[in-house]
């Protein structure tokens, strides 16, 4: 299967979930929030198609500490391909960054995730001081705590 990507950042983010995380920026988003940090990820036709199996292999070799955040763009626009990736990395600590609300995240994906960040970005509620979110309306959920 193929997935359309914007880029992968292996330099280690500390703001996209706990620990040091590799960030996979998936291409394509229809929410187009005002003030979005990554508007270059909106247009799905401007992405790069990658085979999911190749991508899984690359993440295994380069994301040295097995912590991955799938961001975008809106990853759930390519739900099937993202499912392939999370299924292919069962030993990874994975966070999903979606603009949808928690209720809209497909339940069958949650079992593969450690964290999920939900909610649209609202520029008026921008925050650089709350951990792991871009605006104060968004929620960052530890799924292990929720399900425990």
């Amino acid at each position, binding site marked *: 299967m193929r997935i359309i990507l914007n880029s992968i950042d292996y330099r280690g*983010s500390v703001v996209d979930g706990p620990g040091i995380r590799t960030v996979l920026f998936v291409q394509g988003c229809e929410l187009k929030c005002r003030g979005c940090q*990554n508007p270059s990820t909106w247009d799905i036709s401007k992405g790069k198609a990658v085979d999911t199996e190749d991508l899984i292999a690359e993440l295994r070799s380069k994301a040295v500490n097995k912590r991955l955040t799938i961001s975008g763009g809106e990853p759930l626009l390519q739900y099937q391909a993202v499912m392939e990736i999370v299924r292919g990395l069962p030993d990874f600590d994975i966070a999903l960054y979606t603009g949808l609300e928690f209720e809209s995240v497909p339940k069958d994906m949650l079992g593969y995730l450690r964290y999920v960040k939900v909610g649209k970005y609202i520029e008026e509620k921008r925050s650089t*001081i709350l951990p792991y979110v871009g605006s104060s309306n968004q929620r960052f959920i530890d799924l292990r705590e929720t399900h425990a």
Partner: protein
Amino acid sequence: MPEETQFENASQRRSYMGTVFEAGAKLRRREILESLDPRFSKLHDDGKIHIHNLEAYGQTYNCLMLNTVNGFPIGRLKATSEPSRIFGVFDHFKVVISKLANEQSGGIGFANFDEEMETLFYELGLPDSDANLRILRECTESFIDWINGARERGGRTGYYVSLNLGLGTGKVARFVTRSVLAHFKDSSMECIKPNIIFKVKKGVNHSPGDPNFDLFCLSVESTCKKMVPTYLLCDSRPNANVDSHKLAIMGCRTRVVQNLFGEDTCIGRGNIAFTTINLPRIALEIDRTSRGKDTAEKVRMFKEEWDKTADVVRDLLIDRYNRLLGLDPDDFPCNLRFNLWTKPFTSNSLEEIFKNGTLAIGFIGLSEAVRLLTGGEYYASEKNHAIALDIVRHMRRVIDGYRRDCNLNFSLLGTSAEFVSGRFPSIDYKLYGNEVSNNGFYTNSFHVRVDSGLHPIDKLRFEGPFHELCNGGCISYVEFGSALLKNTEAVTEVIEAAERYGVSYLGINFPSDTCLKCNITGTFDDCPNCGSHEIYRVRRVSGFLEDLRFFTAGKKAEVAHRRPNPGLAT
């Protein structure tokens, strides 16, 4: 304070006394250079080496890890009331620090601040009652605030104090560690000193179940907020065979362990002097004369030229040491009174004392040097990494030879080079015009270039093996692009990776901005809470936190090039 204000290091401020001192020091440096063997002064003037704290040449030593017991006035204090005894402990150390800072040029360290305070507490016959512990906590807090605010060195600069702690598991020692960490964490961002070094040790504070694991967690929370503490990794390869109670960091990174004249310890010992060799300069010289030669030949020539330079530096350090021995114990009144070195000043010649100190040969810009010799970055291939390691291993081998032949404690130092990071490239650029000197700074010691974009864990993997070689001290940093906020897991991940790769001493950096109006912290241009433009910016420079406005030219250039992770949020 104008933006362009610049000093030789970021902790300096203006004052009448400081201005007079600086004017005098400038003349003194020139006089000293003129009095030296021209072999020494020429290399310094040419920017091939840098003689640090030149005005102190033959006048004093550099830094000291205090022997806190020798001269402590137990008898006098024991005759006082319980509260007075506690006040007396801190009064004593304030006196020691302020006097000592006027008789030596560099940092002052406590090797085990928590346990040293505990020992004194019980020796003074103090019960660990709630009332006494409360006074102890308040005194500890005010001691930290005093160190942070002090500009008593002529109004010009503060005290470079390092508090190493974390190993003490006794009630009072734990209480002291908790007081220090909690106060530092919760005080304003303008509290940036002293340097606090948390000693990480398995079975003591490393993992859940260890008696001081709670203190380690508190330390990590503080690092997340303020970049301090830094971490001395006691189980890491370079330190595994050293008694962790006798191992500590002084000043920005100085490490004193091995001793030809006594037991391996840092306590009551210090660094006498250090001189840094400009590695990119040697590589630039080789680059100009060896066009067309292969890398192996260039590396051979590089080592040969380094050997020649190091021989001169060895002689220079011995000359400096001998001039120091020519002084009288009376030139060190604070030491004479409190016997802060391992041997008492009262009954020994200065040689008996100062031979226990180290003479450090430092280096800067390994990254640029390897780029010039190989055409690539040292982290770009295993082959280049092997060349970089081979060069540093060679330097260490030669310095170990000096140690044997001269019977003096020579050591290899990974220099932070706050001032020379800018001085060397500006001279080299004029001479060679090469792009490696064009950034305005050279890369710290053996560090991977600051804009490498490497995964932080990979950066530690490349830098780790150098730590074992730099027996005079070094530090690795991990640079994050955003304030860590509550991301304590990132800190523990970095610490675990650093231990795995043989890092001895570790610092975690990120841009730290604080709104001066509403006190919110994070990384921002204007305050996201109240919109204020009055933002106080703190960055780490050469081991200590400092206000960004006062950085030296070289370090300002380096900060501008630091290229961490992007911190993109959806």
